[in-house]
């Protein structure tokens, strides 16, 4: 137990948490945007996976940042495709989302084997690049501030993104439109807001943000692509949106919470070798389920307290 505590209260653990959380934060923000616009985006998982592979392949032949941009574009394009099917062709958003997920699972393996010349498991033969780490050597020995040392550039960008999304949602007219469209589309429609356009952009933004998450995953957390490497992060992100009460700051903390548990599941196998590793890896998912149950109970209580019958 002592070992675990020492491990948890170390700078290394904090860096691990941030590393594990960053893809989740991006995907969560993507989920938040589309959820607030009224479309539950269950395709975050597939979008991340496709973006991860895209950025790995592109970065093998171009600078790292082109790789990241390629991942973002891949996500955004998937968002646009979903918008086309859902908004123009009136397909059910959940089914379209699962379509993207299934395409991602099979499609990435297929594309991977084409890109690597037959390898269906990893991109180990591709010289893909990594996102630079922001090193602040002058802070390395300062207590507390040394926590800022050694994170991915995208982790810093993630913080910026959350603040920007908050500002967009609650301080700009377009944020008002987006929230109005999600909650009661008839109102913005009557006010002359183009509802379909707002929803399309929300899905595109959602895809772009998941794409960033995918890029971080395959160009920092791991360098290179492994099949199904997103491992349910897209769905955890959906849980984080709800757990964070559909608010960017809340969702950020929810994503960080899941990051902590993922980091734990990385640290714990070394300390508790008698617990099967598979069991430890289920922790983030168990926590998701528990968190959602707790959240739901709390929401019910709050409604009761306000005298609203369900």
């Amino acid at each position: 137990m002592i070992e675990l505590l020492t491990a948890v209260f170390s700078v290394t653990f904090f860096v691990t948490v941030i590393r594990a959380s960053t893809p989740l934060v991006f995907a969560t923000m993507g989920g938040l945007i589309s959820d607030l616009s009224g479309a539950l985006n269950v395709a975050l998982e597939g979008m991340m996976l496709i973006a991860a592979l895209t950025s790995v392949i592109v970065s093998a032949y171009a600078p790292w940042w082109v790789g990241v941009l390629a991942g973002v574009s891949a996500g955004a394009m998937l968002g646009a495709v979903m918008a086309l099917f859902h908004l123009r062709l009136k397909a059910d958003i959940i089914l379209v989302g699962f379509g993207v997920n299934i395409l991602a699972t099979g499609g990435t393996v297929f594309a991977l084997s084409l890109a690597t010349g037959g390898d269906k498991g990893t991109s180990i033969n591709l010289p893909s690049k990594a996102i630079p780490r922001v090193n602040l050597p002058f802070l390395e020995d300062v207590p507390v501030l040394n926590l800022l040392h050694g994170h991915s550039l995208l982790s810093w960008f993630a913080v910026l993104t959350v603040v920007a999304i908050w500002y967009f949602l609650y301080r700009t007219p377009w944020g008002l439109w987006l929230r109005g469209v999600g909650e009661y589309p008839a109102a913005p429609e009557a006010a002359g807001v183009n509802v379909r356009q707002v929803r399309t952009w929300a899905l595109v933004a959602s895809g772009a943000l998941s794409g960033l998450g995918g890029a971080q995953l395959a160009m920092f957390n791991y360098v290179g692509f492994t099949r199904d490497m997103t491992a349910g992060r897209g769905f955890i992100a959906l849980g984080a949106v709800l757990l964070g009460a559909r608010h960017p700051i809340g969702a950020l903390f929810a994503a960080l919470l899941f990051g902590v548990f993922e980091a734990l599941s990385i640290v714990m196998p070394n300390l508790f070798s008698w617990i099967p590793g598979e069991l430890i890896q289920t922790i983030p998912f168990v926590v998701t389920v528990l968190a959602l149950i707790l959240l739901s109970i709390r929401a019910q209580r709050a409604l009761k307290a306000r005298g609203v019958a369900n």
Partner: protein
Amino acid sequence: MQRVIEARGITRIYPGGTVANDGVSLVVRPGEVHAVVGENGAGKSTLMKILFGIEKPDAGDLLIDGREARFEGPRDAIDRGVGMVFQHFSLVPSFTVYENVVLGSEPRAGARFDRAAAIERVRHLSETFRLKVDPEAQTRTLPVGQQQRVEILKALYRDAKILILDEPTAVLAPQEVDELFTAIRTLTAEGRTVIFIAHKLPEVLEISDRITVMRAGKTVGEVVAAETSEPQLAAMMVGREVALRVDRSTHDGPRAVTVENLTLKADTGVTLAENLSLNVHEGEIVGLVGVEGNGQAELLEAVAGLRAVSSGDIRLKDTSLTALSVLERRHLGLSSIPEDRLAEGLAVESTTAENLVATRLDDPRFAKRGLLNLRAIRAHATALIDRFSIRVGGPEFKVGTLSGGNMQKVVVARELSEQPVVLLVNQPTRGVDLGATQFIWKSITDARDKGAAVLLSSADLSELLALSDRLVVFYHGRIVAAFRNSEALTAETLGSYMLGADRMDDGQMEAALR
């Protein structure tokens, strides 16, 4: 003569051949309240949709301020100063009042939404036009009357000179109607023009300056409000004399329903009704009078089995109902016409036939060994559609496609297709036109004459006075007065008890509570 709106020979034929407007003309003068009245299906809504750019006319001219108007959409209409408030509000529930008002045309400071400016402008509009509402309140917490004001403010914020109100009073309680009328008078005093769609004639006569009457897609005529009368308007609307008169019950049966010391509580523990005692006899209608939210609806729910009883008893003849399920109560002969036909009375996505049979799925005529007898269900529906003259394309049409009055007739047909022992009725004619009202009233009194014990609640006092044999007044969950209905009983008398200004003692009530 000045004209803000002049419509000439407007014709609109819907795909499928329904002629909604057939050479309609309308002239509205600046600064007046102009009512457009007519039965449901007379073409009022279509005409208004044309004025607001939602529908395009197939023929005819529309002039706004003397200039030709060809609207491609509501946006164009708004640009020409036309605003419309629909019956169903389009407000985002979690937004504040000011956010809803400015949505789509927000004041900006750079890329930022300028909240302070928005609040200020909404407050200013609300004061100028006496539409009292707190700009920073959350919309979902507001009563319907205030939400309607938000809708009016939305139109005014977009600088509407001509305001179309589509049946604005249908959703309002009597006091709210008065407040709306005050606001309408302020609007016209400020130089705005109001077009008022309605079919409650007393209100139309009270608020409007001039009235255009429509029937079957045509304009029947235009009259000055001060020079006409209710019967005259009704005759113009329906095309024949209408008698909204109801014969009192002659039948005097034994006691059917006994409510004894009934107390009802909400889940939160708040008392909704306390110590209610009243009886309903076979063949009589007992009217439950009160401002909405004073316990009448809750009493009806408790009798129907939709609300748990905290203490006290409800008996039908000698059977206590309190422990019985809704279905068991229905088997004893209880029928219920609920308050909200969309939420409680009907499944709008289902067909008329399915809705008509929904309460009888345990009847072997319609379901045997777990299988529906579709032929019998269809025949049943066809018979009821005919008997209750429901205007619908056929039994297989979705209920959601019907007009309000016809939807309500579906509910009434289902509940009265077999003679009930007890009939619970809440707001039977809310948002229903004159012809259908007449029909629904007749259906209720027919059920009464055949011996049903009827409990009736309505926000419309004239409806209660017209139908009830006895009336009890609710205030804060208690019965504060009881009357036998007579010519001498007026809405004003009831009103003073409804608002809690007066209260009878037990001795005074005894005779009328029998």
